[in-house]
């Protein structure tokens, strides 16, 4: 069902855990399946993401996308982190089954939520970042056959 990369990130998820006194924390839930993801960001004074951790209550795809997403934002600037879309995460994992596409949205949204938290705490505006939804109920992802 899952690609080798997905299985790898699922069985050995990178960056699991918490960051105490994190610069930003974002928790999002997926209304479609009830799954929940939380991302912790440690952002330095230059706006670089020094460290990132996650916790996920979700399926194999949710765990793997969390893991891959944290890998993709680690060491990046805020602007670059914003470019890490669910599609980028899926591509990096060599794809997900059609019914699991929505899982990858959790990761994207959780990063955005953590960045929003960071921005709010520091009273800054991040260009291109909108207030995150806490519940993702995206339009039906078209099944691809």
């Amino acid at each position, binding site marked *: 069902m899952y690609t080798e990369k997905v299985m790898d990130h699922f069985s050995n998820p990178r960056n699991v855990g*918490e960051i105490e006194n994190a610069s930003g924390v974002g928790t999002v839930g997926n209304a479609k399946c*009830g799954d*929940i993801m939380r991302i912790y960001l440690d952002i330095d004074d230059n706006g670089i993401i020094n460290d990132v951790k996650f916790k*996920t*209550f979700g399926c*194999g795809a949710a765990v793997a996308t969390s893991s891959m997403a944290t890998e993709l934002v680690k060491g990046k600037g805020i602007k670059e982190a914003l470019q890490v879309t669910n599609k980028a995460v899926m591509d990096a994992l060599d794809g997900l089954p059609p019914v699991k596409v929505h899982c990858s949205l959790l990761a994207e949204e959780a990063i955005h939520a953590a960045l929003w938290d960071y921005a709010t705490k520091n009273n800054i505006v991040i260009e291109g970042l909108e207030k995150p939804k806490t519940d993702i109920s995206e339009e039906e992802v078209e099944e691809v056959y």
Partner: protein
Amino acid sequence: MEKKIYLDNAATTKTRPAVVEAMLPFFTESFGNPSSVYELATQNKKAVDDARNTIANALKAEPFEIYFTAGGTESDNWAIKATAEAYGDKGNHIITSKIEHHAVLHTCEYLESKGFEVTYVDVDENGIIKLDELKKAIRPTTILISVMFANNEIGTVQPIKEIGQLAKENKILFHTDAVQAFGQLDMDVNDLNIDMLSASGHKLNGPKGIGFLYIRKGLKLKAFVHGGGQERHRRAGTENVPGIVGFGKAVEIAIETLKERQEKEIALRDRLINRVLSEIPYVRLNGHRTSRLPNNVNFSFQFIEGESLLIMLDMQNICASSGSACTSGSLDPSHVLLAIGLPHEIAHGSLRLTLCEDNTEEELDYVVEKIKEIVEKLRSMSPLYEDFIKISHIKEGI
């Protein structure tokens, strides 16, 4: 463990070698169409009749009350749709339960779209149908009660005799989906007042793609699949002779070994339940403690999600399920677990282990150890568990 430990016998079972053995001649030697005149075909007709007799005996029914189908799903569809069609002039109301298999539920929903009215009766926290609600649901227009013998997810066995009695007193037909129970539990259609009963070969170590519907004699049910005159003009299509023969063999063995399998599986089941409940925190047994299938165990582990649990078990060579296999791939939590009152996130963390007679204590001890490790690992990555621990600490004033 190198070897796979298969604990998903409610999804499907291994076909017994003796069953395959019995089927083989009907592929390449005695392969004729049983409806034909020549001798090659009459051998097949006899083999089909023998299987029908074996199955009828298992239910204390008559052979001509057994109609072969392509499986449990078709049997359920047939029983419910044909009753609606045949007795629709008497009334348009059907009663079923909230925890039926989708083969029953989706068929009832289809009939609702055709103007029928369906009452879905609640179950209690153990999954037992609320008989008082069932009684109250009966209307003058009720033509059918369809309640499953035993549930496929949580294993709860229903009070079939009481339901049959209720149906009889009120002159309502009673159908039971016995796909999980047939071959695991004793049943007598007369004693239990069952008018229609569905079963499926692959759930009792028989082949896939074969099932039957028992229809009590005298019911005016018509065909659901129209065509040739097979199955006494009630179910058209060239008979699946190897499938029928295999099904017959599987039933023969299941009935012969019923008692000893029950004893063995109940012992294994209870040991597994006791170990998990006592050794893992925040876990709940779903389904009734004693009125349950001998081979069914179903737990909810708080704070973790079922699919992740399954994949990790699979990596340890353990095959299990987190709901009914037919609906995995679906993202909704199981309707059965919701019906017994579990909140969404707990329903999500459910694990079904369904045994067979070949499982050993040693295997199950290994399984318990692996479940422990995996539950711990998944909880350590769960934001829900994190919150829970923090809140407990706050509550405990730490």
